[in-house]
Each structure stands twice: as structure tokens, then as C-alpha cells.
């Protein structure tokens, strides 16, 4: 059976060059980067080179990069770290209803700890209202955290405008850029972002490594206390091989970005057009222009997304929907519900997130096998019979 992978927003395969770059640091180069002797010198240099690579991707300085273990850690560090550092100045945080659980649940945790959190609504395109943001800001507001790109729909937040508002009001601005980094340009010299989270495995690097950008002068209480690693900002001996792979992945992402954007946009258009032509009663979710180039979130009316995904899996096609529960089953998408999609359409959604290695042939195969699956499942739905 052909295996086709359309779930790059979940994770990406490690590129060959990335793997090759990592191998020496899993074997010969095992020194501790904090050591003063010969064994640590090589690994220290490797970590700092990687830091430069990450900084280049984001157009910031290497000293503003803190290596973490994951996007989730970066979000926790940014949000809790800032909240506790500024708790004398205020206790109000503004976020949105469509954030990743790493942000939502961190905010919920802070609510139990005495912080007030405003969860901004989004419109049917998945975008927040900037006026609502402005009026939510109070003298007690210390942090705005709004994702760069949504993991389920790919919708891009108005990051430039939010940054400008935050700067004007003197509020720290964090963005979860885990889905955006490596897929679209991020220029921290042009954007008023104070804190930004990224992750290695979403951009063809290894799992277990991420980075938090903290603009010079932004003070955070560490999440992980320990030795003097990461300039006292994050304890723990560095995941050298992971960091090296991450750096390599950032280099490649930057180099290939324009070409990939063109490639992915063309594939996505082929996919969305093909499905719309072959299958009635569908809806593409999220703002059609303000979107990542690789993400297509499509609702199939009268069909359960979960059953559709299982059927696709049996045909070797990996796609996704909503986010996975602890058990591995799927939760109804809080993102689509926040976009005022009906319960029905939220349940019938599938996310196809494309990547480097995908081809037009793979898209065509999907378009060929989807219609009979959808039709068979619809034929079992009493609602569909009534609608016909």
C-alpha cells in the first residue's frame, strides 16, 4: 500500500541533511557544552552555531534565542515566565479562543493562580477583531498571547497590527509561531513581538527541541531552574544533537522558503479545487487568503471527520482533524466551534497539511479515492437522505 503523508502540521519527517548533521553528536561528539575542556568545546560551538541558524530564520540576534524541549515548553515558559515576572504590575492576560492547548491550558492554570484571562472571539474566518483586542486592554494587562498561524486551519493572525497595539499600550506580546516558523517569513526586526515560540519537529528537524525568542530586555522567571545553561534562563544540559538538527533544519527552511511556498500553494489549490469539483456539500474552513500555504481544512457535510480519517488511514493516507485526546481519540475542534461552524460541520472536518515531499500525483490519488468514501458514509446518514 502506498503511504501518503498529509499531516505536516502534526509533525514532519527529519530531512536527510538534518539527520546527517546530528549523527556526530550522538556518538563522537558527546562532550558537555558547559565543560571548559576539549571535550566540551566542539559541542559548545555546535550549539552556538545552531543558535545563529535559528536567529537567522527569525531575523533576531542569537542571544535572544533560548533552546527548549518543545513548543509546549516555549509557550509555558513565555506565558508563566512573563506572568510571574510582572505580577506586581498586573494580573490580566489576553488570548484567543483558538489557541493551541499549550497556550490555552497554561492560561487556564494561571487563572487558578489569581490571574484574569480574556479569551477573544474569532469571526467565521478565524480572525480576531482588533478593536475587541484594544478594548480588552486594561491598566492591569501584562500579556497578550495570540498565535501566529492556527494549527488546524492555518489562518494567520494580524501579528503586525497586534504587535503595534501591544507596543503602544506597553503590553508584552507573545506569539506561538510553532506552525508558522519555517513555512512563511518571520521578520522580528519588523514585527513588535516580544516573545515567540517555535519547535524543531514542525520544520523537518527532530522532536524534543524547540526555541523561545525573548526580545532583549524582556524579563522572564525561568520555568526550569538549574545550572547556568542558556544564560540562566533554562536549566538542563543541552540536547546537543537535537539542537544541531534544529539549526540545520532552520538553515534549510530559510534557503528553500520561497520555492516551498510556491510548491505548497499549488498543491493545496489542486487539492481544494479537486475536492470541490468531485464532492458536493463541502466547505473550506478559515480565511482563504490569510492562511499558511500548506493547510487545507475542509468540512464534509453529513460525514464524521473521525470515520473519514480512519477510512483514509486504511488506504494509507495520513490526515488529521481537531486534536487528539489522551486516549488517542479525537476531540471536537474548539477552533472550528469558535469560528461558529455548526456542530455538524465541526465534526465533519478534516485537515490536510502538506509538505515538501508531497506531489501532484499524491493529491490526484486523494481526489480519486475520496468521493466514493464520502458517498458511502453519506449514504449511511439519515440527514443526508433528508437533504437530498
Amino acid at each position: 500500500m502506498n503511504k501518503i503523508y498529509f499531516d505536516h502540521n502534526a509533525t514532519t519527517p527529519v530531512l536527510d541533511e538534518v539527520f546527517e548533521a546530528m549523527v556526530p553528536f550522538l556518538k563522537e561528539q558527546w562532550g558537555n557544552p558547559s565543560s571548559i575542556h576539549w571535550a566540551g568545546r566542539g559541542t559548545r560551538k555546535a550549539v552556538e552555531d545552531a543558535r545563529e541558524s535559528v536567529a537567522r530564520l527569525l531575523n533576531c540576534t542569537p542571544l535572544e534565542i533560548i533552546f527548549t524541549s518543545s513548543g509546549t515548553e516555549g509557550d509555558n515558559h513565555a506565558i508563566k515566565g512573563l506572568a510571574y515576572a510582572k505580577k506586581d504590575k498586573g494580573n490580566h492576560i489576553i488570548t484567543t479562543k483558538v489557541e493551541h492547548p499549550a497556550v490555552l491550558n497554561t492560561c487556564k492554570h494561571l487563572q487558578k493562580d489569581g490571574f484574569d484571562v480574556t479569551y477573544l472571539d474569532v469571526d467565521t474566518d478565524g480572525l480576531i477583531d482588533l478593536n475587541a483586542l484594544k478594548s480588552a486592554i486594561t491598566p492591569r494587562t501584562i500579556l497578550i498571547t495570540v498565535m501566529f498561524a492556527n494549527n488546524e486551519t492555518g489562518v494567520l493572525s494580524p501579528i503586525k497590527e497586534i504587535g503595534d497595539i501591544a507596543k503602544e499600550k506597553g503590553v508584552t506580546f507573545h506569539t506561538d509561531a510553532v506552525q508558522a516558523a519555517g513555512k512563511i517569513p518571520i521578520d522580528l526586526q519588523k514585527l513588535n513581538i516580544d516573545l515567540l515560540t517555535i519547535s524543531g519537529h514542525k520544520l523537518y528537524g527532530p522532536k524534543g527541541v524547540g526555541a523561545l525568542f525573548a526580545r532583549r530586555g524582556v524579563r522572564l522567571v525561568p520555568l526550569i531552574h538549574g545550572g547556568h545553561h542558556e544564560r540562566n534562563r533554562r536549566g538542563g544540559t543541552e540536547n546537543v544533537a537535537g539542537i544541531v538538527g534544529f539549526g540545520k533544519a532552520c538553515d534549510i527552511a530559510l534557503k528553500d522558503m520561497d520555492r516551498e511556498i510556491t510548491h505548497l500553494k499549488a498543491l493545496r489549490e489542486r487539492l481544494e479545487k479537486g475536492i470541490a469539483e468531485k464532492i458536493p456539500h463541502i466547505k473550506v474552513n478559515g480565511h482563504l487568503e490569510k492562511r499558511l500555504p500548506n493547510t487545507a481544512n475542509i468540512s464534509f457535510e453529513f460525514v464524521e471527520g473521525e470515520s473519514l480519517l480512519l477510512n483514509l488511514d486504511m488506504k494509507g493516507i495520513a490526515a488529521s482533524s481537531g486534536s487528539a485526546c489522551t486516549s488517542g481519540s479525537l476531540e471536537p475542534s474548539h477552533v472550528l466551534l469558535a469560528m461558529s461552524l455548526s456542530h455538524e460541520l465541526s465534526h465533519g472536518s478534516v485537515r490536510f497539511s502538506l509538505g515538501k515531499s508531497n506531489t501532484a500525483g499524491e493529491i490526484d490519488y486523494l481526489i480519486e479515492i475520496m468521493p466514493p468514501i464520502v458517498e458511502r458514509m453519506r449514504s449511511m446518514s439519515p440527514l443526508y437522505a433528508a437533504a437530498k
Partner: protein
Amino acid sequence: MGRKRVMVAMSGGVDSSVALAKLKDEGYECIGVSMQLWDYSRKDDARGGTSGSCCSLDDIHDARAVADRLDVPFYVVNVEEAFSKEVVDYFVAGYLSGQTPNPCVKCNQVLKFEVLLKKALGLEADFLATGHYARIIKDNGVHKLLKGVDPEKDQSYFLFTMTSEQLSRVLFPVGDMTKAEVREYARARGLRTSDKRESQEICFVEEPSYADFLSSRVSARAGEIVDASGRVLGSHAGLFNYTIGQRKGLNLSGGPFYVLDIDTAGNRLVVGPIDGLYSGSLIAREINWISESAGRAFSEGGLEGISVKIRYRHTGVISTIRPFDNGMARVDFTEPQKAVTPGQAVVFYMNDEVLGGGWIERAIK
């Protein structure tokens, strides 16, 4: 493509583990599935680590490990909504109306043989299999539901709502095995669930008792405990704390007293000596006939000499079943039965065959 595809509903216990192993050994193309019944991330509903009940997070973990060991694809399907609406709400509503509901039958009826079966057919599976101790045979082109061969484990009572259409799409691979044989099979295949403790009671009632579970959802209304003549003997703490035949927890002097009736209209608990617990007949609603010929005989006047079970562990009593008002049935026992309990299932047997059944509406003294 000649192989038949079957979806196996896996609770994480030994029975469904062996169901999967057997089908795999018999050459079926298998898909393992567990149902997520609860939002395990919610602390206040912490089903997460419950052992001794089915479908907890630990059980899903076991089911996945068994599927992995047998090299079978495994999925967890989210049925929280259906479970909450069709099983838990039904359970709560049953107690609030003075009945003793049987959520396991409801879970089989709706979650397994409607929701899961539909998912199986949606995945182009030919069959849905479960680990129930019951058998399905095809006799002259007619599908029949039979008791499992292990008399200690027979679960056919919980399956009376099945239709012949469902029976033609369902497999019970362990129905012709004893529990000991099932465990032996699991051990021989090296399945981690081989010695797992049996699930007990109602899976979603984790609190000390079902009454505590209900107390967390609805407010109890205290009232009077009376005898058959209406004399007040004491007070009760909310009717849902009681079930027909209950003796303990009444806190009455004298006696012994047994719960004879739950009068929701008057919010009264009627108690009395044990003789009052016996009934000669019952009325049942929502009658389902699996056997078409039995159903025909019923509507043409009734059936005699039928063995009837009024609760899971009941040995059965020979009875006559006749039509009653509004599609209900009247069951007359050949000898009086103790604690006929509204809300429980009454299941009709001819030897090993389940002819059909219904829900007990009321006892007739």
C-alpha cells in the same frame, strides 16, 4: 481481497482481547477499536486510572498494547456524546423516575450495536465483533441469539435488544468458550490482559456507590418511609438511594423491612415484610422479538412455557407471555418471583435461545 474484514470492539479486558486474537488466528482482517466514553482530561470526572471498570484510560492502553502485539491496527473512537446522552442520562433519569435502570444493556444497544456497528460498516468491515459470552447461529437462513456456553458467564441477557439485521453483522468469538478457556487462550498468545481482573458493576460509577454518583448530579429530596397501609415509619434521604428488595440502609426499628415500592409521585418509600416482595406477574414495555416466529406467536395470542429471566443473575422462571395494552407484554410466572424491579430487563428464553425481551414497567402482586 477475499479476506473478511472485522472491527473488534476492545474494552481492554481479556474477553475482547481473545476475541481479537481468535479472529486474527482464523484469518480475518482485523481492526481493533476502543471507545472513549469520557473526557479523561477532566479531573472531576477522573475515570483516568480506574481499574475494575471497562473503557478507562488504562484499559484503552491495555487494548492498544494487545492490538499492537497482534499486529492489528487500533483506533480509539470518541463516543462521549452518545454515551453521555444515551447511557448516563438514561441511567440518571431511570433512578429519578423510581426505577433501577440497566445501563449495560443500553450501552450494548446503542453504543456497540448502533454507533460502533455503523462505524464498522463505514470502514467497509463485514462484521463487528465483541467479547460477549453469547453465540449467534444461522439456522435455516435465520440468525438466532444463544446463551454463551459458560453458564457462569453467559451474557445473553444484556443483548436482548438486538435485531436479526444486527445479528447478521456481529460476531461473538468467545461465546463458545468458558472463561477459563479464554484466559488460557490469552496466556498462550502472551496477551497482557490474560489475568486481568474482571470488570465489576457499572463502569462509570466510580464513587463508593451509584447513589453517590447520582448525588453529584442531582439533588436528593428527602421524604417519608411508609408501610403498605400508609403508616409513617421513618424518613428517606432521596428515592434514588433505594432499589426494590433493599433491606440495608433503611434505618428503621423493628422489621426486617424490605423496599416494596418506590412511589415517585408521593416521594414515598413503601416498605414491608419479605412476603410483600413476591409478585406473580409483571408488565414489560418496548418488547423486542429477536425470533420472528416467537414474535408472531406473541401477537397471535401469546406464548407458554417460556423461561424468563428478570435480572442478570436470575435462574429463570417458566412463564406465559401475552400481549398487553399499547404494545406492552404481560408475563405470568408459574411461581411468584421475588423483587421484580422496574427498569431492569426481562428476557425470554427457549432453552438456549434468546427469543426477545423488554423492560420491566411494573410488577403485579
